[in-house]
């Protein structure tokens, strides 16, 4: 028993020595968390290929380490590599395709998120579908086009300074908020209606209290 155990241990030691790697001798690879290559996924045409493997063209030749994954070295225990974006990992979160597709279909079928848009002084309101915009820039552009005005650029400190208009929205709690403060997805789910404030009221909103 003892001999086979030590033989087995020798095998393990020798294993590492005989392992084929592309690294320079003495290169140690420590990698625990796969990194995600966000741009590359289109290049991996085979549906079974993990989009997060960097191919050899992409790593800098000088430090091409054995397995394809790592430019982020994770030290033995506690430093965590930044968690990879889950949207690009094959099979994660572990939900069966049938369920994923079903819920996706339902949310798409549910139609747009239509909210009323009022502008101070305008005779009637408009309605827009928040779902069709990818983010704040597109939304603001659309509002500018719809109402023929300039809203300008958002800044966290000063709101929409330099503009006569401030886009605001009523959230689920009934409060009137300045458009642009919260992440887009949060905004889309919490926005009940939009109001474009004008004139002194607008400027008051933009100033520090």
């Amino acid at each position: 028993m003892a001999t086979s155990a030590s033989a087995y241990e020798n095998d393990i030691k020798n294993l590492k020595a005989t392992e084929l790697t592309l690294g320079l001798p003495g290169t140690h690879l420590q990698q625990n968390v796969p990194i995600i290559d966000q741009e590359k996924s289109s290049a991996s045409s085979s549906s079974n290929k993990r989009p997060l493997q960097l191919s050899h063209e992409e790593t800098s030749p000088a430090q091409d380490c054995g397995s394809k994954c790592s430019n982020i070295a994770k030290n033995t225990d506690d430093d965590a590599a930044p968690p990879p974006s889950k949207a690009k990992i094959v099979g994660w979160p572990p939900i069966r395709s049938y369920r994923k597709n079903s819920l996706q279909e339902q949310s798409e079928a549910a139609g747009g998120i239509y909210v009323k848009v009022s502008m101070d002084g305008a005779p009637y309101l408009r309605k827009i579908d928040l779902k069709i915009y990818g983010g704040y820039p597109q939304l603001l552009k659309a509002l500018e086009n719809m109402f023929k005005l300039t809203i300008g650029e958002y800044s966290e400190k000063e709101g929409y300074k330099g503009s006569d208009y401030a886009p605001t929205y009523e959230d689920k709690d009934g409060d009137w908020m300045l458009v642009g403060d919260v992440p887009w997805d949060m905004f889309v789910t919490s926005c009940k209606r939009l109001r474009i404030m004008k004139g002194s009221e607008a400027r008051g909103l933009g100033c520090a209290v």
Partner: protein
Amino acid sequence: MECCNKRRMMKESPESNFMNRRGSSCFPDEVLERVIGMLKSRKDRSSVSLVCKEWYNAERWSRRNVFIGNCYSVSPEILTRRFPNIRSVTLKGKPRFSDFNLVPANWGADIHFWLVVFAEKYPFLEELRLKRMTVTDESLKFLARSFPNFKAISLQNCDGFSTDGLAAIAADCKNLTELDIQENVIDDKNDNWLTCFPESFTSLEVLNFSILHNDVNFDALEKLVTRCKSLKTLKLNKSITLEQLQRLLFRAPQLCELGTGSFSQELTTQQYTELEGAFSNCKNLNTLSGLWVVTPQYLPVLYPACANLTFLNFSYAPLDSDDIAKLLVHCANIRRLWVVDTIEDKGLEAVGTHCPLLEELRVFPADPFAEGDARGVTDSGFIAVSQGCRNLHYVLYFCRHMTNAAVATVVQNCPDFTHFRLCIMNPGQPDYRTSEPMDEAFGAVVKTCSKLQRLAISGLLTDLTFEYIGKYAKNLETLSVAFAGSSDWGMQCVLEGCPKLRKLEIRDCPFGNAALLSGLEKYESMRSLWMSDCKVTMNGCRLLAKEMPRLNVEVIKEDGSDDSQAERVYVYRSVAGPRRDAPPFVLTL
């Protein structure tokens, strides 16, 4: 049916009439067989068959059901040789991670060559239950032709067939009682497969076609439901409207399990009242599912039927917290609840308040890939359920972040967990309050829940989690691991510490050859091991294969991948030897 059993030759064996060595009399074979025949549990039968040769024979002749957890662990020839009188076969095929696209198409697990052998050896086969197998229309047609007594077919997570296959079953299985098609990849050709049930056919008890996309022939369905008076389970697909549902319920008030169709038609007041009446007429309803595309204002029609419900599957109905709360008030008897995380923590509080008898909770994410501050359920909802539902023993919980303290509180409230599956959807996510790893959470689970059989872990985890598991989880049978651990030591702890471990599935962990090989003697007592995107190499796998000839060590090789790495490894015990049907991308070492 006795005349149909194959009896072995009744030769008088000298032992059967004499005292055996210990001095007590032996039973005659027929009696022994009759007694052992009453054993239902697989584990008991397995134990019994090991006692002595007589008992082994009595067990194999009397067995009617067989369960094969891995279709490649045994061959149909070996199976039929040992068990001559089987009526019901359950087979599972692909590794579970194939559900998440980690196994390429055409990997295997085709039922056909099993059916060919069964047609010869088990002509009186009655039931076939398959999970994660490939089933073609040709196989279904062959099945329908080959087994005159065939009664029940259940296909879960299978692929390869179309409604043509279903039509063959409907047309030719004269004694069919069960047709259960769940979550399969099926080609819905929209032909009238339901019309293939003959007019004279009345034996159906279970019908589940909820996954089909296209319309079915409603007229044929209604007639079928009307004439099958023993129908107990009916699970419809999305194409069935509320109005059609009402008509079906009117025909089948005896239903115990109902899967509704689409729950969002525009109803007149009259139609609404009729539907409500139909539900209140269903006194035996204990299971409700379906509810595709729910219009919440119609949920009240369900209220009259809710009092007796024990299983509510709303996992395809994204309700909000108000809607679920209003419904759950009526559902005091619920034991199993599946929901979507749109109900949020407030909805889970309602669960805790209204469903004290709850034993199983599954919360699925509506939007698993949402970025930013997406909503869903959190630690406070989890705690709320555990406070109100002290009998909880099965949980599947998808969330975006969790705390160690919350999990510790949950298991303190509910120490009887047998299945604990927590999926923190951000890989490597630490405790969001303390920024520490989630080790203590799972430590609490394994220390407190001594009956734990199944565990799925997630979040930022070091080897400490695995030390805990190895030290405390003495009843653990299934472990699922993803993006966790720090070194080989972690996996070693589990392999050395968990005596009842049967299934180990690992992805994206830093476990390499040393870890793989530390389980050398363990794998023969397990059903299978799956490791993908870990640090195992081909050499390590070859060594394992060499040391353990009774294991099948398979590596799934993708094009263009590094030759020395073994990216997807599947190891399982088998008495059938290496696969004879392996596709080119599966290398058997």
